[in-house]
């Protein structure tokens, strides 16, 4: 270099500084590249794929739900809809992307006669997939579709389409059974069980729509498109046509279902004008009825009152309607009381406890016990329902016919004593009740079934352990010497003990026994079916859309009563006499019914749930000599079983056997005081 040496060294220094700076900058680039491409590369590969691949899903039409005779309960109908591409009209914040999009939304709102905000809200629904057009309006007129088609330039991103929509040809019939469908929720989408669901997919939410979801749903069509930055489709990477869901044929007898719903509702409403002994009208707040095939356990009809309108759920239920269904004084119309109503079964449980006493060896079927007015136990008086009359010696048949409580009290106490004295108590009531189908879910093909409860030592102990601290605290807090102190101190110390009183209460279906109407019906089905308990079911067949049989749902044995022929015969005799003998508790409700042609067997029940008005029960089967159907009815706060429930059962049977059809039937209350 021509520079003087001092200058030269300074110049080299400055060049070295530049070199260091340059190399630093290059190193920064290398490091960043290494991070992006090698360390974080996988993530960007995914992003590149999601850029270039668009999946367009075509929903599969859902299968229909049919009655046993093939009549449609639920089907699909094509509905004209106006959908719009969210990505064209809205930005990430949910606002219109530009002035043009704003104008499109404005026009759309005007065309559909809704607010612009409403359009934006529906369009922006996070429950909808962004990769397919979002329905803005379903069930629009053909004119609206025409307008959009003819003026495409005014409606960029808006597409008219035909969507399959649930339709209910039978209106509200069997609402609890068919259920409804709704969009899959955000939480469900995170659940592995919903792995093949996408945002916006419909899923069965209740009833058969839910339990047969896998059959009804079908397989959505899927086209995977390769698109460029402008959204032009360049290639189809995968194309799968939608496969329509299969049809579900149920065991429901459409005509009987209609009749059962009508007769239950009529009966409940009519009973509300009955005045009780105390002068009050019966509340009869709600009720349910179920009819089973006596041989197969197939559900022929099932009704729960009050009910709801599944049509309101089509295309998304309105907030107002849904709130009206779940508000406090709505009467819980969404609950199917047949499977989810939990009641003390009262006297309809006596078939099970009666059989248990024989099985426990305390009496033979024909052995007699005095039907005293009351049973004394440890200072407590357990009265018979008939208020003070001694009805003399009774065998099991008489006890069922007269629903004699003291017969069961006495035997239950004997059994309890035997259990107390045994090293390992054999709780025969629980065992036998379970053979009748209690204390467990029947496994019917409906979601939301409740297991009920038959209490015993283990249950009592667990129940007590969970509450002992509370009992002890209340005992401490109570006034010294008061009744409350005595009670809570006792509970605190000995509440875990299964006492004679518990056993006595359980024997008449009171105390802590809980059962659903379906369990009660199933237990009478087992009696009617010579001791073989069939699993109640609604599904009969799965058929392809073209009608070919995919799968038959065979009746399934659920259990066996394992009673001697004589025991079963005596129970059946008792049930027949209940209806057909003048002294029978159910006789009054069947006045005028042609029992000589169609003998009926059954049992009344009046379940106490103080301070509420008793719950009315009746369960029975007919014809008694060769049972076809089993019917069970429960009316919440409907008073006596013979008074309110039995007449409804009678009307259902009358309709089924063609004696009096539902349309002409009148609700005629039975005697009040009979249990």
């Amino acid at each position, binding site marked *: 270099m*021509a520079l003087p040496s001092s200058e030269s060294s300074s110049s080299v220094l400055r*060049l070295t500084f530049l070199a260091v700076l340059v190399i630093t900058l290059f190193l920064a680039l290398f490091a960043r*590249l290494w991070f992006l491409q090698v360390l*974080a590369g996988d993530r*960007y590969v995914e992003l590149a794929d999601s850029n270039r691949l668009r999946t367009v899903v075509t929903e599969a039409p859902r299968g229909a739900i049919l009655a046993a005779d093939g009549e449609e309960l639920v089907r699909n109908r094509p509905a004209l809809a106006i959908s719009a591409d969210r990505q064209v009209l809205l930005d990430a914040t949910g606002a219109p992307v530009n002035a043009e999009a704003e104008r499109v939304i404005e026009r759309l709102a005007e065309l559909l006669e809704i607010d612009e905000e409403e359009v934006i809200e529906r369009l922006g629904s996070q429950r909808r997939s962004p990769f397919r057009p979002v329905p803005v309006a379903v069930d629009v007129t053909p004119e609206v579709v025409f307008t959009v088609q003819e003026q495409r330039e005014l409606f960029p991103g808006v597409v008219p389409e035909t969507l399959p929509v649930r339709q209910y040809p039978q209106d509200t019939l069997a609402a609890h059974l068919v259920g409804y469908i709704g969009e899959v929720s955000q939480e469900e989408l995170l659940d592995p069980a919903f792995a093949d669901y996408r945002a916006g997919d419909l899923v069965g939410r209740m009833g058969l729509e839910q339990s047969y979801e896998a059959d009804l749903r079908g397989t959505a069509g899927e086209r995977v498109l390769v*698109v460029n930055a402008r959204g032009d489709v*360049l290639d189809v990477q995968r194309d799968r046509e939608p496969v329509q869901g299969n049809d579900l044929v149920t065991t429901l007898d459409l005509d009987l279902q209609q009749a059962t719903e009508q007769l239950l509702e009529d009966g409940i409403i009519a009973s509300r004008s009955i005045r009780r002994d105390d002068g009050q009208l019966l509340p009869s707040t709600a009720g349910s009825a179920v009819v089973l095939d006596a041989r197969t356990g197939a559900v022929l009809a099932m009704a729960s009152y009050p009910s709801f309108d599944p049509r309101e759920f089509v295309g998304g239920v309105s907030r107002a309607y849904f709130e009206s269904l779940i508000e406090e004084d709505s009467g819980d119309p969404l609950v199917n009381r047949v499977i989810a109503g939990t009641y003390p079964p009262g006297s309809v449980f006596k078939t099970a406890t009666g059989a248990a006493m024989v099985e426990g060896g305390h009496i033979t079927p024909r052995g007699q016990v005095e039907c005293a007015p009351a049973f004394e136990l440890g200072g407590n008086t357990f009265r018979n329902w008939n208020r003070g009359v001694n009805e003399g010696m009774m065998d099991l048949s008489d006890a069922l016919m007269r629903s004699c409580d003291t017969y069961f009290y006495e035997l239950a106490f004997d059994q309890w004593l035997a259990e107390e004295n045994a090293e390992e108590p054999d709780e025969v009531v629980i065992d036998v009740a379970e053979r009748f189908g209690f204390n467990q879910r029947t496994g019917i093909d409906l979601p939301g079934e409740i297991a009920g409860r038959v209490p015993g030592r283990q249950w009592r102990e667990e129940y007590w352990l969970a509450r002992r601290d509370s009992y002890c605290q209340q005992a401490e807090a109570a006034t010294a010497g008061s009744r409350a102190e005595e009670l809570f101190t006792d509970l605190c110390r000995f509440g875990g003990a299964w006492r004679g009183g518990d056993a006595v209460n359980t024997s008449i279906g009171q105390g802590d026994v809980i059962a659903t109407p379906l369990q009660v019906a199933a237990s009478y089905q087992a009696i009617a079916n010579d001791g073989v308990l069939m699993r109640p079911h609604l599904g009969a067949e799965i058929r392809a859309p073209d009608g070919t049989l995919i799968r038959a749902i065979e009746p399934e044995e659920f259990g066996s009563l394992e009673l001697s022929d004589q025991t079963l015969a005596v129970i059946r005799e008792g049930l027949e006499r209940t209806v057909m003998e003048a002294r029978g508790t159910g006789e009054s409700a069947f006045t005028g019914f042609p029992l000589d042609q169609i003998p009926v067997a059954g049992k009344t029940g009046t379940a106490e749930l103080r301070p509420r008005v008793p719950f009315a029960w009746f369960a029975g089967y007919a014809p008694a000599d060769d049972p076809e159907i089993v019917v069970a009815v429960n009316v919440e706060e409907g008073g006596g079983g013979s008074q309110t429930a039995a007449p409804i059962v009678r009307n259902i049977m009358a309709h089924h056997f063609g004696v009096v059809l539902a349309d002409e039937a009148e609700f005629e209350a039975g005697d009040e005081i009979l249990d």
Partner: protein
Amino acid sequence: MATNYGQDRELRQQRAQVQSRWMEVYAPIRHLDPVLVLTALGLTAIGLVAIYSAKLVALSAQGLPPTTYVSRQLLALAIGVLVMVVVAVVDYRVVRVYAPVLYVVSIVLLGLVLSPLGTAFGGAQRWIVLGGFQLQPSEMAKLAVLVVVAALIHESEGQPRAGVVLACLVLTLLPTGLVFLQPDLGTSMVFVWSTAVLFLLGGVQARYLVGLTLSGVIGVIVALQTELIQDYQLSRLTAFLGAGDASAAQTAAFQTRQSLIAVGSGQFAGKGLFEGTQTSLSYVPENHTDFIFTVIAEEFGFLGGSVVLALLLVLVWRGLRIAILAKDTFGTLVAGGIVAILTLQVFVNVGMTVGIMPVTGLPLPFISYGGTSLIVWFAMIGLLLNIHMRRF
């Protein structure tokens, strides 16, 4: 000492022989830097492949031959090589003498760009159309400013006084302002940067450097406050930080995001030539010009990107070597300045595609599509060769 004619003649002949051998040894042509030239050509070749790949699908879709851009770039390459040879042949000291002329011509052209004769494209007025060719004078101006400032500092013989510094500043800020008005923020930054590096290398006193840096910072703040920088420029600058006005920054954010996806999804070895989905499906805008690096990084991965960066580093290395070997201050300054401009453009351009620098329109030297840029870069290679050849 007695001499005769014969001896004298013999001596003269010997001297002539030695001299011619010397001349042969020191003939400028014998001191070419083949590494420099081959590296530049190699980078240009890679650029041609990348341009072809970037526009293959898009051009086919428009019914144009896929070589549309490549052939134009090839023509520019031919011109560039010619320019390189011419620049290398003329002694660079002559270039120094004519630097003011080059400078004035550049300023006039920059002025023309802003006049109605200039051509606007995409919101910026950067070009002059000459007989079917688009000329981008701001690219030439880079070279002109570099040469004229280096000449001025050279004249002051290693001790630039305040007057010289001031003159350099004026000469730099004039084209900076003109380019800024186009608007082309990226290129106007190049002028400031190259002069700053020349001040550093040329021995401008530290207090001036500090003072200038401070006033530069204040200037930027004032520019931001007075909205001298247009909104779109500001939002582009801040978009990569995830800040700024949402709607205005969207384009830049989209570019950066798609660019990151392209680069990242290339992974270690790349997706293969013509297999880049981000590239072929046009997800990365301007991927034949400013975002050309995404094509290389997506299709050839970390390996390909590293090769390109390494080749650019080779140019830096040769340039710095030439700066050290140069026989005068002018040579050192020009070589160092070229290295500085190269580094800035590489860092800003690649940095932009990998999301560590804001989106500014600076081409990647030798690689990006753009005739003027390529020709000017070959002219700079010519200058480096020139300085290298005449280092004795």
